């Protein structure tokens, strides 16, 4: 098998043990924290009634039996129905996955728009005042918990300045207007654009600003530092010095010769940040009432709905593992330093 094909095959096969280990851990950990029936109706039912319902739901069977049943479901692509509200997992992904996707894309756009140019700026002003300020900003951006940034943004821009809405993906009116359309993608911006209503588009963007910035800043700080470090490295590389000695203008050196190679690691980091974005989405979505998968995961965790949590974590695991595989593949193709 040629080197690249072998490398990609191994990387692809690694997805399975990764996902398997994660869903197994979640399966057992969730069952240590209680069951959905006791959680919901423990303050209503007598111990005998509760015991009957747990028996009927099969939650009193040996854990191993339940685990094997779960694995069989995963293997056949049947993740079951949520224990607390009887929804199919596919329906859950369809309804809420699009919202998370929309937020993650906005956040990534913010991260790129903020992180890349500021990283370049910091590298150009290496060890001078702008660089120090930007490095401090980067540390604050990725070290501050995302929910705290969210609350801070909300306090300043929603409560004090009243520039942006407190929460939600759109105003109630716009949300109802979009819901009434015959075919909806669940991505509000697309749905609003398709409706042809400019006010609805602006309303959706208006609502997206604070959550996107809160989540985007988390990744922007990392991008900023990475681009800065790489650019400083390439600016002092031999080929740049050689180009400079040939009389290539300094701005061209900076913007073309040094920048492009410095951006290659950003591709790898993008893949790693998908996990960060999904983790951050749980907190951002909860802070801003952004009804996505992260929001639902938090809700189902509270309800001890282990079927829903297992399924959502499995989906998150697959997304992160597949993204990392794709990033590895792209990196192997574009970066000659990757060995396989």
């Amino acid at each position, binding site marked *: 098998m040629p080197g690249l094909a072998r490398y990609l095959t191994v990387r692809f096969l690694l997805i399975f043990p990764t996902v398997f280990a994660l869903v197994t851990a979640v399966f057992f950990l969730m069952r240590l*924290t*209680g069951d959905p*029936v*006791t959680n*919901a*109706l*423990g*303050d*209503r*039912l*007598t*111990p005998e009634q509760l015991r009957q*319902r*747990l028996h009927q*739901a099969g939650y009193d069977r040996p854990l191993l039996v339940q685990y094997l049943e779960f694995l069989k479901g995963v293997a056949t692509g049947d993740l079951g129905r949520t*224990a607390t*509200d*009887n*929804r*199919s997992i596919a*329906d859950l992904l369809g309804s809420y996955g699009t919202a998370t996707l929309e937020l993650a894309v906005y956040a990534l756009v*913010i991260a790129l*728009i903020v992180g*890349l*140019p*500021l990283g*370049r*700026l910091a590298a150009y002003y290496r060890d001078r005042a702008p660089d120090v300020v930007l490095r401090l900003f980067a540390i604050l951006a990725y070290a501050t918990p995302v929910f705290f940034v969210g609350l801070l943004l909300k306090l300043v821009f*929603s*409560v004090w300045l*009243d*520039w*942006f*809405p*407190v*929460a939600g993906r759109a*105003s*109630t*009116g*716009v*949300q*109802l207007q979009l*819901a009434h359309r015959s075919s909806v993608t669940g991505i509000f911006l697309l749905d609003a654009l398709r409706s042809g209503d400019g*006010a609805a588009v*602006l*309303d959706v*963007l*208006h609502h*997206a*600003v604070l959550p996107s910035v809160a989540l985007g800043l988390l990744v922007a700080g990392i991008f900023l530092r990475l681009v800065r470090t790489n650019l400083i490295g390439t600016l002092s590389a031999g080929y740049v010095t050689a180009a400079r000695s040939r009389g290539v203008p300094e*701005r*061209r050196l900076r*913007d073309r010769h040094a920048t492009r190679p410095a951006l290659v690691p950003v591709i790898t980091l993008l893949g790693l940040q998908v996990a960060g974005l999904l983790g951050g989405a749980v907190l951002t979505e909860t*802070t801003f*009432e952004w*009804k996505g998968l992260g*929001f639902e995961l938090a*809700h189902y965790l*509270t309800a*001890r709905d282990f079927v829903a949590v297992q399924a959502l974590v499995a989906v998150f695991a697959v997304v992160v593992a597949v993204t990392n595989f794709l990033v590895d593949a792209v990196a192997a193709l574009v970066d000659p330093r990757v060995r396989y």
Partner: protein
Amino acid sequence: MPRTTPRGPVAAAALTTLLSLAACTTDTSDAHSAADGRTITIGTTDQVSSLDPAGAWDAGSGTIETEVYATLLSAHNGSTDAKPDLAASITLSGPTKYTVRLKPGLKFANGHDLTSSDVKFSFDRQLKIADKNGPSSLLYNLESVAAPAPDTVEFTLKSPNDTLFPQILTTAAGLVADEEVFPADKILDDEAIIAAKPWSGPYVIDSYAKNSVVSFSVNPAYGGGLGAPKNTGVVLKYYTAASNLKLDIQRGDIDVVYRTLTIPDLQDLGTKPEVVVHTGSGNGIRFIVFDLKTQPFGSATAQADPAKALAVRQAAASLIDRAQLADQVYKGTFQPLYSYVPQGITGATESLKPLYGDQRGGPDKAAAARLLSTAGVSTPVALNLQYNTDHYGSSSEDEYALIKTQLEASGLFKVTLQSTEWSQYGKQRVADQYPAYQLGWYADYLDADNYLGSFFADGNWVNNGYDDAAVKALIKQEQTETDPGRRTETLRQIQDAVAKAVPIVPLLQGSTAIVTRAKIDGVPQRLDSAYQFRWAELAKR
């Protein structure tokens, strides 16, 4: 020609423009544009589990279900009595038989006739599915249902003269479902329910984004007894964080908040002229349960002594300052509770008041010390007290810290507090792992029996080992007593008898709080225990 302009500043400028545009958009929010001016937007932190009447028994689902499905009887505002809704009449036609006549010409919103066959189907379905999340347990005394004529339903009960059965018909277990829509043996998906429009209540669902936003309009087919709504529709908006809910009512993005804001938020909103905070006593109660096996001197302990165990419970009841708990922890939004049935429910007494403390409701250290010394209990008594914050609210921590202070200030108790997560709490308390612990209860229907039966009858929910034959006989008596005066007297006897043994120390009667914008009518300024939040009453000026 090489490009020399860095793209960053251009992108940043584009972003700034976009943000500015977004920040400058006119507010297209809420109620103002959701429908016409008489649509009410309600915000809540509740969550819906299912729209299928057989698949949900939680507050969030109940809020919607009671508006889109009708029951044969319902409790109207200001009264705890069950009154006809879809029913024209209800009679106890035999010792174990209730006969209900339906109002003529009833229909579902989809045009299907609503007949006795649908009613029979609905109850049979509840019992057959007995869903793990559903309310079928409330139908514990229902043997069978018959539909001898299109307008007649006969309920056959397991035990005779059950005067509570009409109350059961007002609950989530009594919602009437369309037999042409719902399968008899399984729960139906929300999407399929919405599409089939099986609505029998005052409202229909127009659009449904689960736990996000739901819009309702008036159901023209509703023929029940609640009357025509005073608004043209309702939009229900769901929140996770109470803080967001508070900010949105303050900004006018929603018209009404129904469940649940924090006490500091309610206090803050009370100072704003643009909103009205309606409060009052709710039907939820909070109390301490003593496990009669494992409490100090309990029957399963090495020092088992019933007299000493009783003295410990009575001393604790004499030391707790309920008024201080209500004021200090709950800022006056809760009221002191001196019995097992909250004030406002027919038959409620204040049986503990003359028995303990200063006999006027306040604490009395000397009285507590006398009780313990008379029984020969050496002090301080070590008491392990459990509480919970993820089910009974984060204020439980302050509540139980204050109870510890009150008990220990006397020098008679040495209290060890411990908090446990709800998912374990329910299991551990019935496994006798907690000598004394926090619990709470809210009513399924507004009757004293829903409290007394749940706490002290055979196979009760509290399950703390309290087992008094006389009390159980009195409970059976009130459950079948048809004369209201005699029943009230029996309820008093039960509460007086239990208060002497005090296996449960009642603490507080919960509050209800509804916040409305100033322009909203239909919510009384002062809410009582019999108040039921029904959307039909809401109107916008």
